[in-house]
């Protein structure tokens, strides 16, 4: 379809603003731009149709199944959107006087209280705008902690090789050296490797539990004990919290701080990449290191972005928390795990689970054999799912599994959806033996086929230009 610029007509416009009712003032010439920006010139009809056309080329979780592993694509409730749009939230200036923002404080305090209960932490900040931003904030808590004690030798953060890419990247952004440790054959932390990595230079450990292959690490208490013994702190990557919320708490596993993706676990929409919210919780001894806002509060604290974070996302998450409550939270986790195991059970016998055992909220299939036998790769299967109206699983992650497809159905899917997905996946498995060629070029029924990513990277075209 055409770009919005290709639909622009010089002189066309919407009539949004009235004539100015005060005397006009000009910028001095030295400060004026020479020509007006070449933004699109459109009627409202044009705009409406353009974005409707765009939206028809997008698949959201509220429109269909989206088993994207590690992303917890659960249904995003409408009431949460309605609450976030209330003028009492959306229309309030972040720097209005505190007495005019009592409701804002109530939202933050209530959400903090509930999330502390769920995670076993003592305090919480909502300033981080996303998961990785929360990791950054969390690891800065660790850094401040060691710094405040004058413990300068702790320069290393330990990260398992199954970790999300954000973990090592975050450690680096916080000035730490990253020590990668290999996972054991069960995808869990190899205790010997951990012991070998620990030492006086250990600042901390970053861990996801359940881990990225969907397995709960049984040795978790031993792991956190070992790290603490070595003088390090334990950071919990909350990306997979949906599996265990209300069932077991990171705080009880021995973690000192944690981030949560409100836009995963707590049902706020991803918006095609953001905004998210990466709330960070910590034990009481780290509280003094939490970020503050320069204008709103006392100085001398770290600050990871302006004001108090993606507040309207917190509103949505709180509406969700209020809805589920004490029974609903573990019910969600249990059903997320049940759904994942059910889907895995339905696929077992056709596909090969990378770890053939009870999983948590997600599981990984290993398609190496299929690829060897038919040439059809995990990518081919994923792309073929698109034609069936199902969003592909996460592909080629975690890195420790070859030809990986990682499926996370979440608790908001019914058995009919899971049965249908299993049927489609089995059909594709058989198709791989019969018609591999067509799978290599899937999808076939979308506005585009597979894009040439190499060309995109080699000769980057990152903006439209009038040619």
């Amino acid at each position: 379809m055409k770009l919005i610029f290709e639909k622009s007509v010089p002189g066309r416009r919407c009539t949004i603003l009235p004539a100015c009712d005060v005397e006009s003032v000009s910028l001095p010439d030295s400060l004026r731009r020479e020509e007006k920006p070449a933004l699109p010139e459109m009627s409202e009809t044009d705009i409406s149709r353009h974005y409707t056309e765009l939206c028809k080329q997008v698949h959201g979780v509220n429109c269909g199944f989206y088993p994207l592993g590690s992303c917890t694509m659960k249904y995003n409730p409408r009431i949460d959107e309605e609450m976030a749009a209330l003028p009492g939230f959306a229309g309030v200036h972040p720097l209005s006087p505190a007495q005019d923002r009592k409701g804002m404080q109530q939202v933050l305090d209530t959400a903090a209280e509930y999330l502390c209960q769920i995670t076993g932490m003592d305090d919480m900040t909502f300033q981080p705008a996303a998961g990785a931003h929360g990791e950054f904030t969390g690891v800065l808590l660790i850094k401040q902690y060691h710094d405040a004690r004058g413990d300068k030798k702790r320069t290393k953060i330990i990260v398992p090789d199954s970790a999300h890419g954000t973990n090592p990247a975050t450690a680096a952004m916080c000035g730490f050296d990253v020590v990668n440790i290999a996972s054991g054959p069960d995808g869990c932390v190899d205790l010997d490797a951990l012991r070998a990595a620990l030492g006086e230079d250990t600042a901390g450990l970053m861990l996801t539990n359940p881990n990225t292959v969907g397995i709960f690490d049984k040795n978790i208490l031993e792991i956190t004990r070992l790290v603490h013994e070595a003088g390090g702190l334990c950071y919990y990557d909350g990306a997979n919290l949906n599996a265990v919320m209300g069932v077991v708490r990171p705080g009880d596993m021995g973690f000192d701080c944690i981030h949560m993706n409100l836009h995963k676990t707590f049902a706020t929409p991803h918006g095609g990449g953001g905004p998210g919210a990466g709330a960070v919780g910590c034990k009481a001894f780290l509280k003094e290191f939490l970020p503050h806002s320069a204008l709103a509060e006392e100085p001398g604290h770290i600050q990871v972005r302006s004001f108090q974070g993606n507040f309207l996302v917190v509103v949505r998450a709180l509406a969700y928390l209020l809805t589920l409550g004490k029974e609903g939270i573990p019910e969600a986790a249990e059903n997320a795990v049940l759904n994942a195991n059910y889907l895995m059970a339905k696929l077992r016998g056709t596909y090969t689970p990378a770890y053939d055992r009870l999983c948590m909220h997600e599981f990984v299939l290993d398609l190496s054999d299929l690829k060897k036998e038919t040439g059809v790769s995990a990518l081919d299967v994923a792309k073929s799912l698109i034609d069936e109206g199902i969003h592909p699983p996460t592909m080629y992650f975690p890195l420790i599994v070859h030809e990986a497809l990682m499926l996370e159905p979440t608790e908001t899917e019914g058995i009919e959806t899971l049965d249908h997905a299993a049927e489609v996946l089995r059909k594709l498995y058989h198709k791989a033996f019969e018609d591999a060629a067509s799978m290599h070029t899937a999808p076939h029924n979308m506005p585009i086929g597979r894009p040439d990513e190499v060309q995109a990277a080699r000769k980057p075209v990152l903006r439209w230009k009038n040619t």
Partner: protein
Amino acid sequence: MGSYVPSTGTQREEMRKAVGVSSMRELFRDVPEQMLLTEPLHIPAGMSELEVSRTMTAMAAENRVYGTVLRGAGAYDHYIPSIVKYIPAKEEFLTAYTPYQAEMSQGLLQSIFEYQTMICQLTGMDVSNASVYDGATAAAEAAAMCRDRKRRVTLISGAAHPDTINTVRTYCYGTGDEVRIVPVKDGKTDMDALGEMLTAEVSGFYVQQPNFFGQLEDAEALGALTHQAGALYIMGCNPIALAIMKTPRACGADIAVGEGQPLGLPLGCGGPYLGYMASTEKLMRKLPGRIVGETTDSEGRRAYVLSLQAREQHIRREKASSNICSNEALCALTAGLYMATMGPDGMAQAAEQSMAKAHYLARALCAIEGVSLAYTGEYFHEFVTHMPRREAVLSALAEGDILGGLPVGEDGVLWCATEKVSRAQLDKAVSIVKEVLAK
């Protein structure tokens, strides 16, 4: 009580049997027994939708929404066209994840590509990324882009937003790099001081335009000075002002960043907002975060993809320049939609009217005994006045349904006006101030 789990009891039983566990709790058999919660969470019982609506609406009612907002300081109350509120709420856009699967996400990818282009048009820069969290983190990421092995010191104008300064400082604390604040003189960056501070270890200098006090910096001269010292020049610009103001590119900026909230996003108690980032082509591969690029599919059809991923954390891991992953995609879509709806003329109108109204307000306020401008320079839509009896004035305005300016310094108030405020509203504000000060 509320639940989004569709499975019925019967279905759960069926699934449990298929999985082969004897109870739901057995699903968690890997969890060491002593860690399992044995009693319910200490949070209230779940609520029905009606109760959630009641509870949250009651909280919202504890906030105050002003009919007239004369406060900016990083969050601006511009008029948001109706269609700009409507379209991003479409559930396809709203509930999608990052567009990893290009074939199923062309609409999202194209919207970002269009946003990137508009940011380039607005700033005059060559390349834009798909957004970062907000203006403050955009400044911090830009500072990181400038650093190399030799040049590790970042300079930032003391006239930048305090949140921005503090955020840049925090990011530098992370990497162990140094930040130095360039002093302020008469409400603007002290050019002489900057000249002295631009040593060989300085990687980049960040200035905000218009700055925190509303003053327009002599951005070209600052840029020239920065470049003379071999450092890179980062400008943080108000995007509405850019509709009429000299572009960062024309001022010599290597990187342009800013807070995109004025582009159609609500005040929202401070977020979600939008950090925009654009740079010269030279710095393209140092830009952090997602970038959408154009390419073709096997049939030669135009296609959009997440591009230049080799820079990113999921490929580079600890060698990535930034850990950013989720950004503010929907806010970027909203900003693009806002710019398309306003068009170049509408954007200019918003900018000119905001400026005209701020100047009208400033003149009227300064005609009151005891009130005067704190700084003498040119300004856009914000300005600082000395204000006697500041607390009384702001309280009286609040009683009149007006959020007055932000208190700054000892007796200062930082005012802001936008196109949304009518002359009548401004006159009312002025008459309230007059009345208080006449007492």
